[in-house]
């Protein structure tokens, strides 16, 4: 077997190799690995970039957040429409997982499993993850769903055509079609309150401060402090939605 050495010499190989390896090293140094917010893109611009933290260890399942959300935002009362709800996870001794959320947790919870059969139980408040790479924003055919520069995912209800594609695309079940309006509805992070310098209703009402809200761009924000001091995780990280809802003490059973 003969080889045509003139075409690609050893010298060329080393040259090309050095360029590739060097290039990767240099570009890696320019964009350092962002450990804390691995599931999100780096904050955009200089302004605020909102994120959410929820401490599962602190949630007592009172459901006040879900109720406050419905009252604040005129969410239909029927138990099929929620911008914010609480789930109760019960893991039995035999490994069976039971998830419940009667009326989104608004009326509180009753444990359906006898105490001696429970391995562990905890509450998980759920709401829009205000993803940085939102599948819902991606699929909206008219651009009625959009992300604000502050990182809040909103819907323009005067523009939404009610095709429900975003409802299908949201992996977290955070959207519904408003039964009277015919357009999609979701958590706005109470942007009307934020503008007045207030906290979103569900954060303000939380009696145990299990919900932390803040600016990811501000290194001194309460949220960044929370993220630094806890091992936080997003739900369904494999979907790469850039979720900005970080849970402390998130069990793998939570989906």
């Amino acid at each position, binding site marked *: 077997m003969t080889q045509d050495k003139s075409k690609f010499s050893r010298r060329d190989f080393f040259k090309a190799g050095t360029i590739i390896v060097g290039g990767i090293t240099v570009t890696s140094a320019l964009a350092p690995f962002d450990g804390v917010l691995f599931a999100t893109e780096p904050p955009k611009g200089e302004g605020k970039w909102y994120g959410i933290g929820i401490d599962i260890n602190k949630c007592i399942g009172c459901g006040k957040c879900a109720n406050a959300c419905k009252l604040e935002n005129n969410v239909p009362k029927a138990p099929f429409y929620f911008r914010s709800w609480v789930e109760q996870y019960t893991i039995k001794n035999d490994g069976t997982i039971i*998830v419940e959320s009667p009326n989104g947790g608004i009326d509180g919870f009753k444990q359906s499993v006898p105490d001696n059969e429970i391995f562990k139980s905890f509450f998980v408040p759920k709401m829009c993850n205000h993803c940085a790479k939102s599948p819902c924003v991606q699929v909206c*055919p008219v651009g009625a769903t959009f992300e604000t520069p502050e990182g809040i995912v909103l819907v323009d209800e005067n523009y*939404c055509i*009610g095709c429900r594609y975003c409802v299908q695309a949201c*992996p977290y079940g955070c959207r519904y079609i408003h039964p009277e309006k015919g357009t999609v509805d979701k958590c706005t992070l109470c942007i009307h309150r934020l503008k007045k310098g207030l906290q979103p209703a569900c954060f303000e009402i939380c009696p145990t401060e299990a919900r932390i809200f803040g600016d990811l761009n501000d290194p001194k924000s309460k949220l960044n402090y929370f993220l630094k001091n806890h091992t936080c995780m997003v739900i369904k990280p494999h979907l790469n939605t850039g979720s900005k809802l970080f849970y402390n003490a998130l069990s793998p059973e939570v989906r």
Partner: protein
Amino acid sequence: MEDHLQNLYEVLSKVEGYVYPNEIELNWSILIVLYPYITGLVAGAFILASLERIFKLRILKPTYGLALLTALAFMLVATMPLISHLGKPFRAYEIMITPHLSSAMAIFGFVYLWYLMVVLLLEIWFDYRRDMVIWANETKGFKRFLYKVLSLWTTDISPKAVALDNKLGYIVTVIGIPSAFLLHGYVGFIFGSIKANPWWSTVLMPVIFLFSAMVSGIALVMLIYILLTKIRKLSIDMACLDMIAKYLFYFLIIDFALEGLDQIHRIYEAEESFEALHKLVFGKLFFTLFFMQGLFGTILPLLTLGTFQFYKPKEQIRKRIYLVVASLILVGIFFMRWNVVIGGQLFSKSFYGYTSFKIGLIGAEGYLMASIWLIIPFIILAFLLWLLPPWKKIEVDHEI
């Protein structure tokens, strides 16, 4: 509104396990089952017509015009289930004037218009122009006026002009084949690209949709051809029918293989969603998937058409069996769409439970409305066949 809520309360009482509260309501109902079904019929019928024209299968000549008109009749209705399903139907035009380019759905209007205006209407126009000019001279009154309008007041039917029609029609058909692939592959992409839904999210979805579309469209033209010759009391062209059946068989094999591959892949990979989907398939989808889609819609037609490839019973029997097989396939593909669209929403994205689907007789999303959307294309087809009867056309050899 009250009925809707009452319906949801009833569904709530039937929820198994846990579903996110917003998932109790099934967002895409029977109208969205019809949408890929009808567009599939269009794409399939068009491919059958192209087989004759591009791939020079002259034996399929008797169904060429019929296939084109069938495609047009269904195409005219294809968007209606979609638009009537919207929460704000009168805003539907927004998709066309302010499309959001990262959305798979936003492109639908353009793909649709391209296919309708550039492919179907042009091809039919070039194909019928000479005949329309002749018919305009032969008929009187409104029909004459209609032919004149439809032929855009052209009168030149010299051999040169007809040859040009033929040539341009051929070019349109050549563009039409990838367009038909695009149309239906794209519909598959609408579902296949939703990463939140593991029942939909597969790269094979566009290809599966495409081949099932071909199968359903060919079966539809076969069915209409058999019924039409019966109604017109003519003897059927068995050679043509056998050839259609042969292609139906081939496409059905590919479709079956692709769907089989999809399922085997899911089973073998057994990802996070596997248990939830396994329970779905053997629970709520058992009847529609294994019986309607699998046994009646695929296996039985496959075995029958396969047998006919080396053993052919008498013509009369064969014709009747073809009629049954075509009907079975049409029902089977309908349930394939059903299993994708409805099945994909029955399980929770939490993988902890299942909601159920309740459909009423009346209402915009009821059985009645759905059947109306399926009947209207046949009425349009009857009108098109009256206006542009393929059997009255002057035979044009599509050889160019």
